[in-house]
Each structure stands twice: as C-alpha cells, then as structure tokens.
C-alpha cells in the first residue's frame, strides 16, 4: 500500500494564513461553528455566524435558479477585503484577503 503523505491540518492552515495578503483563515463545521481559526476569537465568531448565513442563502439562491446546480465557491469583494469561501457538505473554509497588500 502506498503511503500518502498527508499534511497536518494546522500546518496547512498556518501556511495558508502566512501567504502574502492573507489576514486569516477560519474553518466552520456544518453547524456554523468555528473549529479552526487563525484570527482572534471575537472576530472569528462574527465571521462564523455571518458567513454561515451568507453561504446558506447563496446555496439556496443557486439551487433555486437551477435545482441541479450547486454552489462550489464564493468570492466576496469588499472595500477592505476579499473573502474567499470554499463550502463543502461538512465544512466551510473562509479566507480573508487584504488585496491592497498585493
């Protein structure tokens, strides 16, 4: 059996959070609870609740337009940041990017 070298979750997140322009990474579970985060607790909570709702609305919108379609990725551009949101059945990844630094 081939041994696949799988990277450690926390290491992957740290590496991602260390990329230029990345302000933080948050992983939510399907209940919208943050199970990992590289940003401070209070802000993590805010991101968790709001993004969870945003994604749930987005999913509904996409499947409402075409019931055979599904949301796969969400980028939200704001004055200050860009949010990159990768949703999955079980989890959700939020990456907050400060594109002005790029």
């Amino acid at each position, binding site marked *: 059996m081939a041994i696949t070298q*799988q*990277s*450690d*979750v926390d290491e*992957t*997140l740290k*590496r*991602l959070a260390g*990329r230029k*322009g*990345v302000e933080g990474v948050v*992983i939510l579970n399907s209940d919208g609870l943050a*199970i*990992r985060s590289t940003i401070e607790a209070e802000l993590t909570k805010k991101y968790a609740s709001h993004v969870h709702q945003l994604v749930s609305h987005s999913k509904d919108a996409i499947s409402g337009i075409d019931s055979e379609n599904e949301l796969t*990725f969400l*980028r939200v*551009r704001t004055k200050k940041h860009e949010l*990159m949101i*990768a949703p*999955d059945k*079980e*989890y959700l*990844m939020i*990456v907050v*990017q400060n*594109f002005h630094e*790029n």
Partner: protein
Amino acid sequence: QIMEEVEINERQKQAQLEDEKKQNETAQNEDTRDFVDSSSKIVERALHETYDFMKDYTIGAEV
C-alpha cells in the same frame, strides 16, 4: 465478588466507549484534513491570480 465482576464489566464498557469515541474523532479528523487539503489548494490558486479586476485605473491618471 459479584460486585467485582460488575465493576470489571463496567470498566470494559467504558473502555469500549472510549475506543469508539476515539475512532469517531479520528474519522472526523481525517474528514477535516481531506477538506482542508482540497479547499486550501483552490484558495492557493485563487491567491496566485495577481490580476486585480477591481483596480481603478482612473485614479491618478491625468489624460
């Protein structure tokens, strides 16, 4: 003596429960890792895109 047996049984049950819990956690961790592995790759690729489609070229441009 009966009490002892009950106690042993109880302990075995406890150990079994803990084993199951551990297995569940491991499975969950694997799920998390698979998700983080794949989603981080997508995000990394998105980060590599340096072109800023929102950049305002009108600022500072004196024509």
